[in-house]
């Protein structure tokens, strides 16, 4: 191969730098805004007096971000605690067994992702209204299962497929039950995959907006919907939104970076192998 010309290399570097800036800049700008006083929010220079007062204000009434953090965390935790074990069991069955309508059933799981959230929420809103589940975390967990479970089954089946079936057979000969094989052989061997699927589902649930917007008013409001309340009759309180944004992004960023290496391999692997 001929060496590329210096001009081409410089151009390539410039384009890459531009992309890097495009990705990082909006995040950095919002994070900086969280440390600004209201008077500094509207100026574009970097010469502002940093403050942490916004992080205190958002915990006070009427913002109560502490409660929002608890709500978001509880909803994400219970959604995963139900979805992941259920998905592990059925992903194992899809991975190891042949049965009637297997392809149809698996396709059905994926096809549910074509149903838009507004369709799912209409009947649930009406049902929760009758059952008194509006504005509860329980209600949010139930609807969040709809978006998380099929994804988890899809991803986990792929990771389980990569575990040699001989491992199951060896355990069967030793007299292990199927449940024991799942919990003591396949899940430990596919643990990185189980973690990737869980983190992916965590991000989906944590960032979920439309369900919480429609189903919650006060007690069960999540961090995402809490953002809307910073739009007041006094105008948008950008510095407080940005401070709340830090609480939203930091857990998701930590989770995403932790699995970044596997993310790439996992998702494309599932789709095009």
């Amino acid at each position, binding site marked *: *191969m*001929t060496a*590329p010309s210096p001009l081409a290399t410089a151009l390539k570097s410039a384009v890459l*730098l531009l*992309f*890097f800036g495009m*990705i990082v800049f*909006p*995040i950095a700008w*919002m994070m900086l805004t969280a440390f600004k006083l209201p008077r500094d929010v509207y*100026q*574009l220079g970097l010469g502002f007096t940093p403050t942490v007062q916004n992080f205190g204000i958002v915990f006070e009434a009427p913002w109560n971000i502490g409660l929002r953090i608890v709500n978001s965390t509880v909803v994400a935790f219970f959604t995963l605690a139900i979805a992941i074990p259920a998905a592990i*069991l*059925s992903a194992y*069955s*899809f991975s190891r*067994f042949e049965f009637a309508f297997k*392809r149809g*059933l*698996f396709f*059905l799981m994926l*096809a*549910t992702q*074509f*149903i*838009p959230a*507004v*369709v*799912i*929420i*209409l*009947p649930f*809103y*009406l049902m929760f209204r009758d059952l008194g589940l509006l504005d509860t975390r329980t209600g949010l967990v139930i609807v969040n*299962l*709809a978006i998380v*479970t*099929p994804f988890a089954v899809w991803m986990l089946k792929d990771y389980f497929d990569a575990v040699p079936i001989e491992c199951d057979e060896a355990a069967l000969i030793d007299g292990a*039950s199927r449940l024991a094989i799942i919990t003591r052989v396949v899940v430990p061997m596919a643990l990185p995959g189980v973690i990737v699927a869980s983190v992916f589902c965590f991000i989906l649930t944590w*960032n979920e907006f*439309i369900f919480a917007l*429609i189903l919650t008013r006060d007690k069960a409001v999540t961090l995402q919907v809490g*953002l*809307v309340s*910073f739009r007041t009759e006094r105008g*948008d309180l*950008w510095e407080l939104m940005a401070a709340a*944004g830090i609480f*939203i*992004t930091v857990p*998701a960023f930590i989770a*995403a970076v932790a699995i970044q290496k596997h*993310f*790439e391999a996992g*998702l*494309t*692997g599932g*789709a*095009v*192998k």
Partner: protein
Amino acid sequence: MPDRIMRYLLLVPALVIVLGTTLWPLGSAIATSFRNWRLKRSPVPQGWVGLDNYAFAFEEPEFWNALKVTVVFVTLDVVIAVAVSLGLALLLRRAGVLQSLTRAVLILPFAMSPALIGVSFRFMFNGEYGVLAKGIGWLVPPLADVIWLASPGYAMAALILSDVWHWFPYLTLIFLGGLAAVPVETEEAALIDGATPWQTTRLVVLPQIKGVIAVALVLKTIFALKMFDSVQTLTGAGPGITTQTLAHYVYTIGFVHYDMGHASALAIVLTAILVGIGIVYTRLVMPPKVIAR
């Protein structure tokens, strides 16, 4: 327990969840779409009205507006996001400091919530003090006086830009995964045979990742069709209803006007569009073995 029973038993929890949280609501929404049910007038469903809700939907200019907005948004959004991410993925293949730096931040926008992205871009596209509005105005002087979110075309542009920003780094990750499987030898051979780098990319590399490109197109199209979160938090469907997508229109009829029958009919129309595209794409691009091996 024998495997013959176990194989079905293991499926039960996830199937119950999926049926209960997606197919039941779908069925229920279909039933409601044939009824007259305004929540502001009656807490219980009123009479059956046949196809009236559907007929009414197709007569409304707001429906056709939302359909047009959705088609414009999806087309531009998908084309731009996929083209940009494919280009970036090709640039990121080789090792280098800038390459690894950029690769390291690719996951961040995807982990950010669409609601927060909408809020952030609304701040940054503010006509008076938005850093992006000012920055773009400085780079392209004719755009300096544009009040982005108050002008129909520019509000749509801001919506597309924010969604492209959310998705292109993630799509780049998908393409990098696909490119990693392309053997370097095929390119080297083409270059030795005298092909230019551009010819090599177009005729040798890209055909080998056709499948990945197709999957990226499907994924992006489906998510773009469902677009709601940042419509709500960035433009609020405005100015007027010039950026109101179908999903946002269903939301407005259902949860601002509380007309359940009408909203259900619209929701079913949106689902039909999504399922239609889903089936066509699945047939077109996904080999059957992907669905179940």
